[in-house]
C-alpha cells in the first residue's frame, strides 16, 4: 500500500513546494498583466505612429523582461517537484494531471518563448505589424499557460471526469471536458488571472506615481497611468465578481475550507459573513464557547454566498469533525473508517491478483465497477472516502484555521480596496491633475506591495485551506509524498530558499536601477 510516512517529511515537502510556488507567484502576475498592457501600449503606437508610445512600450517591456526571466526559472521547479517530491501523487493522478501540464507546454510555452524573442529583438528586424502581433501572442501565451495550470489546480480542488482503476491503482481520466470545463477550474482561472492583471496595473501605477513625485517623465507617467488605471479598474471589478464564484464553489465542494475561511466552528442556518474578527488562539474543536474575541458580521450573507439561499445551513468545523445527523453529515471518524475499508478492499484485490486467485479477483473487481450493484454501493459509500483512510485523527480533516481565516480576510479587504483605488486614480488622471495629488501618488506607491500581499494571501486560502488534501477527498499529502529522507528535502529547501532570495534581490535591484534610469535610457 501507500504506506504512512513521517510527518516531518510531509511538512518539509509541503514547505518546499509552498516556498517555490510563493516565489513563483511574485513574478508571474507581473508577466501576465504587464504583457497585456504592453500589447495595448504598442497597439496605440502602431495605430497612432506616435513615438512616445513606442518609448513607453519599450520601457515597460524592459521591466517585463527582467521579471519574466525569474518567473521562468521558478516555474520549471514546480514541474520537477511534482515528480521529485510528490511521486505518489504523480502516479495516483498523473493520468489526469499530466495532460494539462503537457498541453500547457505545447500550446503556451512555445508560443511565449518563440514570440518573446521577436518582441525583444525584432524591433528593427520585422515589420511593425509582425512585431505587434508577436507582443499580443506573448500576452496570449502567458495567459494560456495560466489557464492550463489552473485547470490542473482546479481539478485537484474538485476532482471530476475520472474513475479509479484497481489494476493500475490510480485514477484515470474518462472525460476531458469534465476536467477542462469544471466550473471550479474555470472560476479559479478567471479569479487568478484577474488578480494578476490587478497586481500589474498597481505596479505600473506605482512606478508612474514615483516619476510624478520626482517630476520626471510627466507625459510618460500619465499615459502609463491611464492605461493601467482602466485595465486595473476593469480587472479588479472582475476580480471581485469571480471572488464570489470562488466562495460559492468552495461552499459546494470544500466545506472544511469554507469553515476555516470564516473561522466557523458551529454550523448554522442563515449564517452571517464575518467581515472583521479576531480569533481566540488555541481554540479547541468541540468547544461550546465562541471562537472569536469579537466579530463584525453581515447577517445571512454567508448562507447566500455559499448556497444562493439566505436560509441555507452552513456546516461548521464541529459539524464536519463530529458529524451532524440533522443535516446528514457523516463524522470524520466514520469517513476514516470507510476510507480504511476502501483501502483494505483494494489491497485484498491486489493480493488476490498477485496470488493468481482468479475467482476472488473477479469477485473483488466488481466492487470497483460502477455498473454492478455492489460496485455502485462500494464506490458511493466507501471508495468516495478513500483518502480519509490514510488519516488517523478526525481533526486532521481541518486545515490551519487562523492562517486560512486571516489570509481570506486580508485578501477580500484588499480586493475591495483595489476597486476604490483604481477609481480614485482614474478620476484624477482623467481630470489631468494626478501629478498635483501628492497624497494619492504616495498612496499609489504604498499600494504596490499590497497587491502582492493580497495575491499571496489568496493562494494561502486556496492551498492551506484545502489541507490535508492534495486531491480533495482522494489523496492526502501524507500519502502523496515521495519516500525519501526528510533530511534530503530539508537540504533542498534551504538551497532553494538561498537561491530564490539571491535571485529576488538581483531582480529587485536591477529593476529599481532600470526604473531610476527612466524610459529614455531604460528603454534601450
Amino acid at each position: 500500500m501507500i504506506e504512512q510516512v513521517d510527518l516531518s517529511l510531509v511538512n518539509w515537502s509541503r514547505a518546499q513546494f509552498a516556498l517555490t510556488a510563493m516565489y513563483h507567484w511574485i513574478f508571474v502576475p507581473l508577466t501576465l498583466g504587464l504583457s497585456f498592457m504592453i500589447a495595448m501600449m504598442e497597439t496605440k503606437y502602431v495605430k497612432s505612429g506616435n513615438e512616445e508610445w513606442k518609448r513607453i512600450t519599450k520601457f515597460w517591456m524592459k521591466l517585463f523582461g527582467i521579471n519574466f526571466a525569474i518567473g521562468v526559472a521558478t516555474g520549471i521547479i514546480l514541474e520537477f517537484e511534482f515528480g521529485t517530491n510528490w511521486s505518489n501523487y504523480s502516479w495516483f493522478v498523473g493520468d489526469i494531471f499530466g495532460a494539462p501540464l503537457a498541453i500547457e507546454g505545447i500550446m503556451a510555452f512555445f508560443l511565449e518563448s518563440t514570440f518573446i524573442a521577436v518582441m525583444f529583438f525584432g524591433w528593427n528586424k520585422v515589420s511593425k505589424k509582425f512585431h505587434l502581433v508577436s507582443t499580443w501572442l506573448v500576452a496570449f501565451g502567458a495567459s494560456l499557460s495560466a489557464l492550463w495550470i489552473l485547470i490542473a489546480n482546479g481539478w485537484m480542488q474538485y476532482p471530476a471526469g475520472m474513475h479509479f482503476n484497481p489494476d493500475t491503482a490510480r485514477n484515470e481520466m474518462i472525460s476531458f471536458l469534465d476536467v477542462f470545463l469544471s466550473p471550479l477550474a474555470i472560476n479559479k482561472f478567471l479569479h487568478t488571472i484577474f488578480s494578476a492583471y490587478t497586481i500589474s496595473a498597481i505596479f505600473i501605477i506605482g512606478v508612474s506615481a514615483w516619476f510624478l513625485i520626482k517630476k520626471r517623465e510627466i507625459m510618460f507617467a500619465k499615459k502609463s497611468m491611464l492605461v493601467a488605471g482602466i485595465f486595473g479598474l476593469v480587472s479588479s471589478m472582475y476580480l471581485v465578481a469571480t471572488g464570489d464564484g470562488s466562495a460559492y464553489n468552495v461552499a459546494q465542494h470544500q466545506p472544511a475550507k469554507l469553515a476555516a475561511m470564516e473561522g466557523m466552528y458551529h454550523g448554522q442556518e442563515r449564517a452571517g459573513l464575518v467581515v472583521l474578527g479576531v480569533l481566540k488562539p488555541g481554540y479547541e474543536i468541540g468547544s461550546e464557547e465562541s471562537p472569536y474575541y469579537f466579530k463584525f458580521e453581515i447577517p445571512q450573507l454567508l448562507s447566500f454566498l455559499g448556497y444562493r439561499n439566505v436560509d441555507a445551513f452552513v456546516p461548521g468545523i464541529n459539524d464536519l469533525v463530529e458529524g451532524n445527523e440533522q443535516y446528514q453529515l457523516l463524522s470524520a471518524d466514520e469517513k476514516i473508517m470507510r476510507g480504511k475499508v476502501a483501502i483494505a478492499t483494494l489491497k485484498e484485490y491486489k493480493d488476490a491478483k498477485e496470488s493468481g486467485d482468479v475467482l476472488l479477483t473477479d469477485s473483488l473487481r466488481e466492487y470497483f465497477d460502477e455498473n454492478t450493484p455492489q460496485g455502485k454501493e462500494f464506490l458511493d459509500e466507501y471508495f468516495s472516502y478513500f483518502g480519509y483512510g490514510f488519516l488517523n485523527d478526525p481533526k486532521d480533516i481541518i486545515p490551519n484555521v487562523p492562517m486560512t481565516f486571516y489570509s481570506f480576510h486580508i485578501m477580500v479587504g484588499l480586493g475591495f480596496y483595489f476597486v476604490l483605488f483604481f477609481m480614485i486614480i482614474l478620476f484624477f488622471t482623467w481630470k489631468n491633475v494626478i501629478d498635483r495629488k501628492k497624497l494619492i501618488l504616495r498612496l499609489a506607491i504604498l499600494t504596490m506591495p499590497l497587491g502582492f500581499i493580497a495575491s499571496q494571501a489568496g493562494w494561502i486560502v486556496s492551498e492551506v485551506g484545502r489541507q490535508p488534501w492534495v486531491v480533495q477527498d482522494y489523496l492526502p499529502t501524507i500519502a502523496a509524498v515521495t519516500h525519501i529522507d526528510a533530511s534530503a528535502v530539508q537540504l533542498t529547501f534551504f538551497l532553494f530558499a538561498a537561491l530564490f532570495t539571491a535571485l529576488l534581490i538581483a531582480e529587485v535591484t536591477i529593476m529599481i536601477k532600470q526604473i531610476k534610469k527612466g524610459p529614455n535610457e531604460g528603454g534601450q
Partner: protein
Amino acid sequence: MFEIFSFELLQQYWWLIVSILAGLLVFLLFVQGGQTLLYTIAKDETERSMLVNSLGRKWEFTFTTLVVFGGAFFASFPLFYASSFGGAYWLWTIILFSFIIQAVSYEYRSKPNNFLGKRTYEVFLFINGLVGTFALGVVVATFFTGNGFYLTQMNSVRWDNSLRGIESLFCVRNLSLGAAIFFLSRTLGILYFMNNIQDDPILKRSRKHLLINAVPFVVFFLVFLVWTLLSSGFAVDPHSGTVFMEKYKYLNNFIEMPIVAVFFVVGVLMTLWGMTRNMVCSAKPEKGIWWSGIGVILVVVMLFLVAGYNNTAFYPSVSNLQSSLTIYNSSSSKYTLVVMSYVSLLVPFVFAYIWFAWKALNRKKIDRAEMEGDEHMY
C-alpha cells in the same frame, strides 16, 4: 481518428513523440554547449557579447523543449515520471539547479546593479552548460544500464541507494554518454556560432575548436555505443510481461528493426558530415549546424526507439527486474493517450511558427555593429 488506434499503438505513438522531443532537446543543447565556450571562442568583451546575444535568442527554445519533454513524459508515461524523478532525487535536482541559474543569467548578466556581478552570471551559464548536458546524458544512459529501485504493490517507488541517483555517476558507461553529450553540445554550439555570427576572428577560432570538441565527442559516443551493443539488455516477454536479461539486446533491436538501424546510421553520418564539412570547407559555414543538428535528432530518436520498442524495458531496474518500466506498463490510460494524441496534432503548427519566427530574426547575422546598436541586449 485516434479512437480507432489500439492501446499498444497509442503507447508506441507516444513513445515516438517523447523520442522526437528528446532528439530536439539534445540538438537544442547547442545553447548549453555554447555557454561553456564564452571564454574559449571570445577574446574580448565585444566578442563575448556577440556569443551571449547569439545564444540568448535561442535559450528559451531549449528551456521550453526541456519543460515540454518533461510534461509530455509526465502525461504519457506518468509511472516513469514518478519513479525516475521521485527516485533519482539528487540527480534531477542537480539538473534542475543548473537550469534555474541559466534562466536568469542572460537577462541579468549585463544589467547594472545585478547583485551578483557579471562574471557570476557567466559562471552560471558555464555550470548549466557543463552540468546540465552531462547529467542529462547520464540520465539517458541509465535507460540502457538500469537503476536500483522497486515498485510497491501500488506502484510507489522505493529507491535502493541513499545517494538517490548520484550513484549513476559511478558507472563508466553512464559517464561516457554524459561526456559525449557534453562534447556534442559544445560541438553543436560551435556550429551554431558559425551559422549565426558574422565575424572572421570568431569564425576562425570556432573552426579550430570544432576539431578539439568533435573528437572527444566521437570517442565517448563510440565507447557508449559499442559497450551498449555488446552488453545484455532488458527484454520483455510480450505475452507475460516478464522482464529478463537478453544478450546483445540492443544490437538485436537494431537488427530486428532495420528501419531504425538505417535512420541511425544516416543520423550518425549526417552528424559527422556537418562537423567535417565545417572543419575542412570554408564556404557556407552556416550549413554545418543543420547537417549535424538533423543528424543528432535522428540518432537520439533512434536510440530512444531502441530503448523502448521491440519488447524492451526503457527504464530498467537492476535490483528488481520485474519493476522495470516498459512503454506498456508505465503509460497513461488509453483515453488520456487519445486526448493527448489530438493535442499532438498541434505540434506541426508549433514547428511552423517557430521556423517562421526564427527565420525572421535570423535574416541578418549577428555582427559587431549590432552590439553597438540600440536593440535589447543581453
